[in-house]
């Protein structure tokens, strides 16, 4: 069985977000880049299943990005992916990214394609389902558990107030969220050395239009200062919530 994980290269989650060029592009100066947290959890689960010898021969990661994404892709190889493919295009919108991924995926036969539920930069939550539609494959979203049992895929998906247990045949696109794996793996020295010799294939993109344009960015309005209440007067807080905010 072959698993593909689509990974996005995103700013570290503690990054102070700033914009440049008259608020039309994200300011990359001094930013640390990481594997999108949900994609990293998907990768972790795939590697755990491979280690548990559940019939997985190969774990490949795929990214749509320019050369500056390579360190993040190498990290995915360092924590255990066997192979990486980068499609050499600047991500512009979810449709364009999903299209590039779909065209590259069609060149090979993957049994399971995993995507994180959203990326922490543009919060699109779209690429996984778009990809499934382009590939004409079934998709399951909000997966918090995945196991392979005698070749059968067992999934759990989050619903309001609980979970559904699902069985599905391959190939399919799985869109995963928190819970799929506990902690992401940390690359060790051996992994980092091995990553340097693992294949990172670069594909040139195909021509495709975008359906949306990111015109500009802004920061949320700063909040009014916090109204501090003395710890000796807790009642005052409750009265404010009742009489001023009228929320309780």
């Amino acid at each position, binding site marked *: 069985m072959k698993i593909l994980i689509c990974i996005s290269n995103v700013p570290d989650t503690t990054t102070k977000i700033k914009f440049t060029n008259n608020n039309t592009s994200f300011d990359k100066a001094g930013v640390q880049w990481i594997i999108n947290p949900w994609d990293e959890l998907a990768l972790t689960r795939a590697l755990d299943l491979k280690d548990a010898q559940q019939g997985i021969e190969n774990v490949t990661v795929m990214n749509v990005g320019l050369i500056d994404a390579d360190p993040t892709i190498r990290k995915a190889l360092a924590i255990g992916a066997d192979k990486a493919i980068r499609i050499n295009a600047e991500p512009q919108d979810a449709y364009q990214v999903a299209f590039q991924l779909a065209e590259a995926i069609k060149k090979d036969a993957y049994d399971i394609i995993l995507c994180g539920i959203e990326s922490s930069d543009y919060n699109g*939550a779209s690429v996984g389902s778009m990809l499934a539609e382009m590939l004409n494959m*079934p998709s399951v979203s909000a997966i918090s558990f995945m196991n392979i049992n005698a070749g059968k895929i067992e999934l759990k998906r989050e619903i309001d107030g609980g979970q559904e247990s699902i069985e*599905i045949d391959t190939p399919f696109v799985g869109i995963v969220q928190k819970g799929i794996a506990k902690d992401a793996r940390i690359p060790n020295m051996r992994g980092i050395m091995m990553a340097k010799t693992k294949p990172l294939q670069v594909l040139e993109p195909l021509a495709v239009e975008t359906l949306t344009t990111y015109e500009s960015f802004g920061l949320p309005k700063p909040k009014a200062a916090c109204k501090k209440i003395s710890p000796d007067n807790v009642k005052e807080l409750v009265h404010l919530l009742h009489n001023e905010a009228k929320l309780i």
Partner: protein
Amino acid sequence: MSVLVYTENWDGKFKKLSFELVSYAFEIAKKINTSVVCVSIGNVENEELNKLATYGASKVLNVVDDKLKNLDVNAYKEVIAQAVVKEAANVVVFAHNNYGKAIAPRVSVKLKAGLATAVLALPESVEPFKITKKAFTSNALANVIIKTPVKILTLLQNSYGVFENAVNGTVENFSPDLCNVCVKTNVKEVNKVTGKILLTDAEIVVSGGRGMKGPENWAGIEELASLLGAATACSRPVSDEGWRPHGEHTGQTGKIIAPNLYFALGISGAIQHLGGVSGSKCIVAINKDPDAPIFEAADYGIVGDVMKVLPEIIEAVKEIKAR
């Protein structure tokens, strides 16, 4: 022309979220001189379907089909896509929840209709169609232009509000052609709690962090939550330690919530936590560290020991409720 809304139901009932979507769609419909059509999938009584007219739905397409018993994203996509064509929809509105996030992108590809997800408000203009969405996990906003004739949106819960716009509504049975749709999602078992207020629905949320010191101290959080009709939540370290179930984790990688009132008890307010709760209308923070970042996001705060403050809050709430 129309604005189409997918109104999901929960065991045959709509929620505040459904009415928020219809209220929102009604305003967009007004801007482009058309009306709102809802699509409802599954068994919902007519009386319940009629409620949508109160918020501005002129028509409800009622879809019942065995293939749609559980969410098979591909099958649901077919229903919505066919409804878009039938009603010549210009704009399609989904909730930015698990269903909306799963279905909307497939509809987008099928119809080659541009999609903007996690939108926060009405479009700034309709020609060009320009709308604001959440970006960088609530640390920024992005203004997106949708360039295609049909526009698809997913609206963040509790970002618009519920407004009554009573219209004359009709309910029409709609049978999309699902002959070629093969359901691949085989749901074996459903496990869900009923009767408990869901974190994502709750108007008030009481949330605890590491400052609560241990799972044995959660009785206070639960007591306050039950007094206020609130849901309980926690920060990431708390769920990682196993003090509370993962389903309660709110934050960037956990649940993203936007209640009217959020109590952060013993939560320092790391940027990842704020990413999941900053949509709250009002945040109350109790923390003994005056420099904790949670106070920058909070509307009301007490610098003090949560173990001492929480019982006093409970007493004061009891007094108010007893009045």
